[in-house]
């Protein structure tokens, strides 16, 4: 058991070795077509999601852009 965490959308989320943006999105069912990802405030382009590692203490924002009919 690790007690390390990240922040995911301003909520505490368990960290584990090898965590990536894509893995986070998959685990949380974040599969909307129009998402902006920021790690510690910096934009991560879509093509880098699979390769971008997330580290303990990171502040990850996975922002869904949609405003309803």
């Amino acid at each position: 058991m690790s007690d390390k965490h990240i922040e995911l959308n301003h909520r505490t989320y368990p960290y584990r070795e090898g965590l990536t943006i894509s893995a986070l999105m998959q685990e949380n069912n974040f599969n909307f077509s129009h998402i902006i990802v920021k790690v510690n405030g910096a934009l991560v382009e879509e093509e880098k999601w699979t390769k971008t590692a997330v580290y303990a203490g990171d502040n990850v924002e996975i922002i869904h852009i949609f405003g309803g009919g």
Partner: protein
Amino acid sequence: MVDCVKNEYRHHIGSHEEIMAMKAKHQVLATYTFDPTVIERGYNNRSLYISVGGQYDVSEQDPLLRKTEGERGIVIGEKAVTDFMKQKFTGGKGFDLYHLWKAVKADTSWNAPENDIVISPGPLAGITQYPGAGKSLVCCISPTTHLPIDSNVGGYFGPFLKFAGFDILELQGQAEEDILIYIDGNNHTISVETAPEEAFDSHILGEQLSEMYANSTKDKENISVISSGRAAEHSYIGILNFTFWDKRRQCIRLKQAGRGGIGTVFRNKKIKAVVIRYSGVHGDLNNPANKGLLNAAGIRLHKEMAHYDTKQNNMRKIGTANIIEVMDRYDLLPTHNYQYGGHPETPKIASKVFIEKYITQNVPDGCWYGCSMSCAKAADNFELRTGPYKGQKVCVDGPEYENGGGLGSNVGCFDPRWILEANFYCDTYGVDTISHATMTAFAQECYQRGLINLDDTEGLDLRWGNGYALNELMHHMVAGDGFGMIVGKGIRHQKRIYAERFGKVLPEYESMLEGRPWVSIKEPVIDKPIPTVHFNPDLADCEYLKAEGYDDEKVLASIKGDLLENAGANNDSAYIAQPGRWSKLIGVPTIGRDEITAWPVGKPYYSDDPDCCYSNGRPWVKMTPEQIAEMEEFGMENKGLEYSEYLMKESLAQQGGYALCNKGPQHDEAWLIFMDMVNNQIPTFEDKAEALHYFPMFRTWFGLLGLCKLPWNDITPINNKYEAEPAKIPEHVQNYFDIYEGVIGEKHSEASMVVQSERVYTFQRIFILRMGSGQRKHDTPPARSLGPITVGEYLSREERYDKQMKEIIGVDPTGKSIEEKVKIIMAYRWDQFEQLVDAVYKRRGWTPNGIPKLEKLIEIGMDIPELVQTVRPYLKQEGYWPSGEEYAKYDE
């Protein structure tokens, strides 16, 4: 590019000769000739007023400049659109509410002749360069809420009205027989004529009138028709259909002013249709101040649509229905009357099913010129399986997302054919798909909980997913009798009728029986009752009828009728009604109204009390007070309007977005679910309150200008990800300020836009206050909108709720029963909701009771005597009347 199919139903509208014979039967009752005008920067500066009869005197406060009087009390005239109106109300919905305020009194009922249907396209409406600029806003006093309702609608009518020479059309009075109004925008004439022979249902009537008033087939593109349908006459959820001519399909298309029963008022006035003809549309008719700004902004958005739509929302392929499966994945697709947020069968009604099997593709489907978003999809040659048009192949306008979520998952129908069938009939009969779906889901849940039974529904088995029965219900609405009529009055009326008929009438309901004043049936915030908990999976098999003491097997068998094919239901027991079976029960001993109160709970009784208007000798099982209270918890309405089709119970901000709506719970004020629940971008009450200020104001602004919301954020610029506030889509907001400046000639900014909207928004709040609502207690939502109220709902998200209880509320869920846990979660959520309301009222400049403060009215320039007079007693009572000398002049 596909070759567009010709829809086969067209031969049902009649030949040209038959249609011209119908026209020959018209008796002209009034005619009017008006002077041509030139639109200056978006405004004609005059409005058209028509009273369709009934000896109604035009309000002295809102005088006519010139007028003509026809037969039967018909008046046609013009009013000025003044600088005062433009400064304070801007246009569109603002103008509508201004005239409506003048037309009605505090106790005006929806069916009074002075109720005023006001239609206004807004100063930007009619430009062709920017997508989504053809909207009309429609207001009147609603039959379901008894408050001003506003609804926006596409189609060509609004722009044509403006090009004909009017910023506003007002329809007042009441005709003696069915009439139609014809506005000739090129010859500058108006006539009011009887219309005895044309059809009532919109898909036929729109075609007939387009044929009748067009000079040629090509000329049909210059005709737009407003009509309703037969169900609008008997239900309270009538819509207005606005047509546009689809040149490729060679048929009319229907766009709907859906919410709040405007079509019911239209038919109550005995207006069959309003027809307009205008030939000569081009992009400069608004005489814009700076056309270059319009062109540049328009092309920017056209290019985004051309390049990015397929990667983003697929609006061109499937329109708003693209989000059916998205909502399901995010637990937001309302299912079984908002109990759940998704269903394993959703893939059956996912957007790709409609794309692959039903929707005609690659056709420009804009509901006004210049809409490159083109979301107005249609299913061509769809064969109907029920009703008067059974077997015919028709063009179904849709499905919109709301059809999938409402007529699909919320009523448990995971069959695209039933969704399209109900979609078609809702439109042509003239009923609101959203209210219809939500109130049918309510009746279904009442039925499956045993609050009403198969007797009450006249043999319609309303279990989830019974598509036949649900469509049959709609056909009953057209016939104007039976259970369909009761459902068609909406949830608030259903609750009253069920309670009145089945149980002890609560004092709150008593005051509602008179119709006015429209008192909230909910008590204000303090001492919120903890919801009762229900979970009975066996209810679905009609056993409750026996359990409730009604065990006549023979009657049940006769009620159930024949088993039918039922693709939508998840079991094999779907039955439809057998009309006329009630005659068997005549002669059964009955009791009177007085005896109902003393009647034992659970024992069937029979009533032929003439005061009990819905009884008619049928047996009733008495409802307990607890059961009546239950209906308050899961009846998804607020202010009398049914909720629209998004599951809001895991987003506090959206709970407020719905319940704090001026007109009732429609998401056109705010849709914050992703920002709040998923992105967690607005964690504090103040953050949520800010969002519940900015977004309602921004979205109100669309309604003032005549714009559609969809091109704002259903496509996003490629650079949006670099913006500080991406949810606002800042580049598109700037586009709007550009086209505002392009037409009106004045620079605009976020601050000036917000104030422009605040004026009308605050006015509307004071308007609903004047009409007997608009206080805090009226903003109270049904319990289900806040969270799980049943064991089943709790279990569906047990992990999430347990976690919330442990981590946020600080209570250990271990060892607690589900019933206990529901109580804990719900008590917490009621408290959260009340804190949200406090924060939002504060941000909007209102008192804790939801009354706009005098200081706010002064700040936004709305310290108009009539408004001050309306809020003054409430402010004084609450202790919020300001004391300074500068306020003394308002206290007269």
